[in-house]
């Protein structure tokens, strides 16, 4: 960005730390953006004339006579239809070689939606993956993360979901993404011919970590533009929120703040909530749905990041490798979509809730049968049937490579129930049994 005429340039830096510098200046506003020696920075503290700036790329090589220019405005993004199909960095500058965007300039991280104006989410986002559509149905306006270990294929699953979901605009916010993953997404979207509805804000591992803090706000500002001005169904993918939180802790540490649990800042909950709560169903039909990734370390969900996330989001999805079928499945026990109650059996076939619950219950019976087996106890005939059922259920419904519509999933569910169980063992409401039961008459 070039400096404008009549802009005051400061050249006397008082203090430099690893991430911040302090100068004396007048008329500076809170949260304002600045350039220190050409590097983007933001005002984080004002104490009389002393202004503390957080320099996003770090302070290496900043001299006390470096030029400081204030922009007089907080970070902004120019929004217009031109955003579609483009890739940007964390500051909203194009990284795909294309031209700058023309459009209305809006502040990022804007105000919250008035809760009484929100609508109740009620529209399904079909993904074709039965582990999601059947057991953990997603709804527009929902926010839900994948809780995944770093070695799990969460990027693939998320990309699949993004491409299959019938969203008008897909926004990818990449934080600390490896360059390989970035290229994976780019090629995938390109090949799928979906590029015209994709917008990406990318901070790769090659960029400074503190820059990541801008990515969610950039992505969601673009999302709000499309959801409110164009009443579009927007799907926002944020990966990886754990790296975002890590950047928060770096900043709070350098600002000498007292850390709370797991050396995270005390405001972690509010910081994350501010992002996730941007998911909303707007009164005029537009919506923002957030699907995020929170990587876990060793599956530990009591760590401050997944723990706080769990209290904010509307459910969570877990991936698990099922060794019986040698495929990755959506774990039916720990995964949960809190908003599914709003649509299943209402927007989908009436038997959906019962088929879903019954199958999961029988799958749980299989799990206890397996424990019995491992502990050396004898299996009953019922136990053996549940194990057979579990294997087929896993392969035909839980695996992430499934791509069918919800009615087919339900039919498959009935087929499996009928194949392995009796009417009594299934225990589904009479009216549905009469309509859909395909097993033996007893």
């Amino acid at each position, binding site marked *: 960005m070039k400096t404008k005429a009549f802009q005051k340039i400061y050249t006397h830096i008082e203090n430099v730390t690893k991430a911040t510098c302090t100068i004396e200046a007048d008329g500076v506003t809170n949260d304002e953006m600045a350039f220190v020696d050409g590097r983007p920075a933001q005002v984080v503290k004002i104490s009389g004339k002393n202004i503390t700036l957080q320099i996003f790329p770090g302070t290496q090589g900043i001299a006390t006579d470096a030029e400081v220019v204030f922009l007089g405005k907080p970070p902004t993004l120019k929004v217009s239809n031109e955003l579609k199909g483009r890739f940007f960095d964390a500051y909203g500058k194009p990284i795909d070689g294309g031209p700058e965007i023309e459009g209305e300039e809006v502040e990022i991280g804007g105000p*919250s*939606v008035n809760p*009484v104006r929100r609508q109740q989410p009620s529209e399904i986002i079909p993904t074709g993956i039965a582990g999601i559509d059947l057991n953990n149905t997603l709804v527009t306006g929902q926010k839900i993360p994948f809780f995944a270990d770093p070695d799990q294929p969460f990027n693939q699953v998320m990309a699949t979901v993004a491409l299959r979901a019938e969203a008008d605009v897909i926004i990818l916010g990449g934080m600390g993404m490896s360059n390989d993953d970035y290229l994976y997404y780019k090629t995938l979207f390109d090949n799928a011919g979906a590029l015209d509805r994709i917008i990406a804000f990318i901070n790769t591992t090659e960029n400074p970590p503190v820059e990541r803090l801008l990515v969610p706000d950039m992505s969601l500002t673009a999302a709000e533009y499309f959801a409110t001005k164009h009443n579009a169904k927007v799907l926002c993918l944020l990966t990886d929120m754990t790296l975002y939180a890590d950047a928060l802790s770096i900043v709070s540490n350098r600002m000498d703040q*007292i850390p709370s*649990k797991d050396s995270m800042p*005390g405001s972690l909950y*509010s910081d994350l909530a501010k992002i996730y709560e941007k998911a909303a169903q707007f009164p005029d039909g537009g919506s923002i749905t957030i699907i995020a990734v929170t990587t876990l370390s060793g599956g530990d969900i009591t760590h401050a990041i997944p723990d706080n996330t*769990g209290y904010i989001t509307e459910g969570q999805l877990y991936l698990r490798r099922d060794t019986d079928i040698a495929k990755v499945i959506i774990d039916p026990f720990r995964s949960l979509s809190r908003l599914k109650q709003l649509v299943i059996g209402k927007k989908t076939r009436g038997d959906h809730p019962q088929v879903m619950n019954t199958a999961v219950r029988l799958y749980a019976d299989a799990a206890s049968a397996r424990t019995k087996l491992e502990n050396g106890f004898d299996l009953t005939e019922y136990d053996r049937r549940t194990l057979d059922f579990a294997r087929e259920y896993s392969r035909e419904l839980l695996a992430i490579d499934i791509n069918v519509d919800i009615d087919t999933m339900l039919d498959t569910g009935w087929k499996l129930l009928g194949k392995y169980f009796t009417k009594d063992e299934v225990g589904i409401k009479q009216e549905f049994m009469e309509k859909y039961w395909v097993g033996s008459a007893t």
Partner: protein
Amino acid sequence: MSTKGKVVGIVANLVTIEVDGPVAQNEICYIDLKGVKLMAEVIKITGKLAFVQVFESTRGLYVGCETEFTGRMLEVTLGPGMLSKNYDGLQNDLNKMEGVFLKRGEYTYPLEKEKKWHFVPLVKEGDTVTGGDWLGSVKEGWIDHKIMVPFNYEGTGKIESIVSEGDYTVEDTIAVVCDSDGNERKLTMTMKWPVKVEVRSFRNKPRPFKIMETGIRTIDTLNPITEGGTGFIPGPFGCGKTVLQHSLAKYAEADLIIVVACGERANEVVEIFKEFPELDDPRTGRKLIERTIIICNTSNMPVAAREASVYTGMTIAEYYRTMGLKVLLLADSTSRWAQALREMSNRMEELPGPDAFPMDLSAIVSNFYSRAGFVYLNNGQTGSITFIGTVSPAGGNLKEPVTESTKKAARCFYALSQNRADSKRYPAVDPIDSYSKYLEYPEVTEYLDKTAESGWVDKVLQLKDILLRGKEALDQINILGDDGVPLEYHITYNKSEIIDFVILQQDAFDAVDASTPLKRQQYMVNKVLDICNDNFEFDNFEEIGTYFKKIINILKQMNYKEFRCDEFNELEKQLDSLLAERVVELESQAAAL
């Protein structure tokens, strides 16, 4: 001449202001940001510097912004018209705000200025009154809303004049009182009260002794809460905390429900907004929303206002209590409130306590819980605030500071357990870890002897013993295997399962089972206890499981039927014949007969 000041420092929402006159701790001020007034509260004073927490985003604020101090603490406006309203944490009427997004510095009046209320006087000229006395009443929905002498009226005064029955707005003068020094004060239907100060316009606050029916069996039967009691619900996410709170709001025997959504998900509040106007209130035959006030400061709304929201809720509850009403106050979740305290304490660079929470967290929490309670008003009538807060313990660990502080303050503890939630045993209140201190109160025991049946508390304790024995038996079975333990263990375990499935578990989404009146709970408890006290004979453990599953199934079906309807009676007969198959009398008992 009010104090003015200028902004000299800003870190996030903590702003330092240099003042030109006296300021008070907790005083409210407005910072003028190019015409937009941002509300803030003084939280620390050092010499000429006042540190204030701003209730809004401080983006764009600069050194030199003019600030005006109001000379008052954070107050709420109390008067008729609050029922069914949706407020934010500072009592702004959210419905009056324009646009989809919240605007900074937009404050809306919490009552209706134009609306006329039909006022019926309850005092006459010459009567002596004091703060909190009833001057008259208006109909607010189905509630007789008492118009009271302002709580801040010191000493006693004489009614100089009072208007006759008729229609008035909240701002019309309805009475004039004159104190012994001859000072006159005009009274309207509204008053203001600082939220952080307890309303003490009552005669005394005895120990609570009446049970408050909630319709939730695991609470009413096992760990009852009293009218004016306090309780809290800690639980990891996904354990059904919110569903339990919603059930309480729907079925508890209270005149008025105040729900404080404090730093939680916005979509959950939307659920209340959309559902409560549809749901029938079983007590009044009207819609549930007509006895509900919602105070909503969701997680993305400003943090400082989140802290204020619980106090706003409590003060409104105290106002209605002084009218002689039974108020139920629900706060979801108090952990978010504690986190708001932590964020501010952190910015002020105070020395931290455990997990970086402020050192006085425990004192703040206790002080807040102590504002609930059952009171005798000055006119001898009673009123109560029953407070139930939820706690969201970090990592599901109940040893964290907020849970521990709350444990010291609240008398009932409803622990939600992950294991129960995982096995879909809802409500997931753990029967063994949870407790109600009220069961130890002799006055509660006496009350239950009279209202339920003599010796009721003993029966409750017996239920708890059976549950505990069942758990021990299950542990042994799991270690030694099904056939490694005597049959007696299986019977003990299965008896505890009857209590679990029939009394503890309850279907919040079923029309009949969602709420159980106390009389019906009493019937079920007796029925189940009789079974638990019976002796059974079996040949092997497989028989035991199958047999008890049948019993549980019949009892569960009974729970789903209207009490004493034909089907219910039919099921009871089936149960009796099933029991007759297996129950044996021990020789010793037979001999005694």
